[in-house]
């Protein structure tokens, strides 16, 4: 039995006969979003771009929208026969709105030129960046991911161990707690100038800053998790012959895990912020650096592309963390869905 409630079943409203059938709804929804994408494709292809502009990828963008429209239409027809395709029905309204957004963006930029360039490039400009500059973007993603992963894991590991130590040992609490209280609330970015001349390289300095930003919430939440363990859990284990080691590893830590994951989540958010700042100010690689570089050249399309990729990266990592939590804490009831 899964403790995670997948879809809260809401009472179905009485429908209008024919339209209430799931097959019909799926077909109509799918065809509506397919039509919207088709309109976006046609608009892009047949409405000529504003005279003085020369966007290289207008045709490709139109083709991509058209291909998506065809795929959606096929899925809509398939959903009448095959229930597997009905899963996409949930996405139909979003796909519809996204198509309208893209079409509107296309119209006000490439077609009518209402928004000033180069600050607001049309969608095909972003397609152009992704296709022509993918090498540099991929290198940026790789550099950012490497820096983030190193700093985050280091900070999370140190934070976790420190949190358990404070929560468990009076001595550790006495010495570490005041330091934590005094230094922890300081934003990690405040250390930036110091870190960049104390550490041998900007890379190691950034790792330190990211680790610091991650470590603080992980420490505090782990500590509060360990300190908040029901004392009856310890009584039970003690009467059953548990050693101190067993109490820490098999009672305190598993009981604190829900808190630890909150800390890991907060730490991940903090680490993104520090990563981007560090890359903008010191490290000569990564998506943050690319953002800064693109802005320096007034290459706003590049900036938007980098922002978009960064959003995918951050959101993907948070999703990954939540998946891990759902797996490890499946015993918990009523988990927050991401």
């Amino acid at each position, binding site marked *: *039995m899964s*403790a995670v409630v997948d879809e809260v079943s809401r009472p179905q409203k009485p429908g209008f006969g024919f339209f209430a059938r799931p097959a019909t709804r799926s077909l109509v929804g799918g065809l509506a979003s397919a039509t919207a994408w088709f309109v976006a494709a046609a608009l892009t292809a047949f409405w000529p771009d504003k005279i003085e502009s020369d966007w290289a990828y207008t045709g490709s963008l139109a083709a991509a929208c058209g291909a998506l429209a065809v795929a959606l239409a096929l899925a809509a027809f398939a959903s009448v026969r095959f229930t597997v395709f009905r899963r996409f029905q949930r996405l139909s309204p979003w796909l519809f709105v996204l198509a309208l957004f893209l079409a509107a963006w296309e119209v006000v930029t490439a077609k009518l030129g209402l928004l000033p360039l180069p600050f607001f490039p049309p969608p095909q400009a972003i397609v152009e960046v992704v296709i022509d500059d993918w090498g540099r973007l991929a290198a940026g993603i790789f550099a950012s991911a490497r820096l983030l992963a190193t700093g985050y894991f280091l900070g999370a590991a140190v934070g976790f161990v420190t949190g358990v130590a404070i929560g468990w040992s009076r001595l550790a609490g006495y010495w570490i707690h005041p330091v934590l209280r005094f230094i922890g609330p300081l934003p990690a970015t405040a250390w930036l100038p110091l870190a960049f001349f104390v550490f041998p390289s900007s890379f190691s300095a950034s790792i330190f800053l990211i680790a610091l930003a991650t470590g603080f919430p992980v420490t505090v939440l782990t500590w509060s998790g360990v300190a908040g363990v*029901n004392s*009856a*859990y310890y*009584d*039970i*284990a*003690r*009467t*059953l*012959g*548990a*050693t101190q080691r*067993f109490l820490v590893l*098999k*009672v305190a830590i*598993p*009981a604190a*895990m829900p808190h630890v994951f909150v800390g890991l989540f907060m730490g991940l958010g903090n680490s993104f912020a520090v990563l981007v700042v560090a890359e903008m100010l010191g490290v000569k690689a990564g998506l943050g650096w690319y953002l800064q570089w693109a802005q320096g050249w007034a290459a706003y399309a590049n900036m938007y592309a980098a922002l978009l990729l960064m959003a995918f990266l951050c959101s993907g990592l948070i999703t990954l963390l939540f998946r891990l939590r759902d797996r490890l*804490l499946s*015993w*918990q*009831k009523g988990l927050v869905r991401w």
Partner: protein
Amino acid sequence: MVAAPASDDPVRGSTLTLREVRHCFDLEGQPLPVLDRISLQVGRGEFVALLGPSGCGKSTLLRLVAGLDAPTDGSLLTEGREIESPDPSRVVVFQDPTLYPWRTVWSNVALGLEARGLLRTHRGRIEDALRLVGLTGFANAYPHQLSGGMAQRAALARALVNDPKLLILDEPLGQLDSLTRITMQGELVSLWQRAGFTALLVTHDVEEALFLAGRVIVFSQRPAHIKAEIVNARPYPRHRGDPHLAELRHQVLAHLGLDATW
């Protein structure tokens, strides 16, 4: 072995001796006396109930017997040796089942064996203990999927798997509904008869005490001292409608000053 018939080794429980046990809590610097010179002798395999008004210090006494706390004064001995720390031969079943929510029923029951490094050699005992409490099909369930009665059964299995010589029961049925409670009272008696441990039960339910125990110790209000000791020699299985039990009930209530409603 948990499920071994009692006839192999009829008396496997341990003795328990309390000598002039006093205990105080420290309440903002003021000592608050809880137990007042309690002396008690419990024989091997005996079932003794400690009965008293709530908040009188019965549960504190159990914590001392379990070795979770040390008494302010006096001594507690089992098999002639001083109780200094918790020991798996003396296992407590608390009012709240306190199963670990992150472990399945099976791993909850395995806790004591795991803590002592006996899991590898004594794995089979877990199945036996689950069968004994009627939870065979629920080994892989998580605590939040169990009803109150099932959770308390799992807690009982977690205690029994360690083959205790003294089972300490701190109002173990206090949170159950009355029907489950009646069923589990019967089960407790048959478990005790089969396994042969010494049982020390804290309760504030007069009928429960008389239905289960061979001897009922009546405590006063805090600081608790022993007011009376009532021997209940009725053979098992007992019947709730037994007039002799009703008579004993009257006596117990009189000691508690509650006989006016009789």
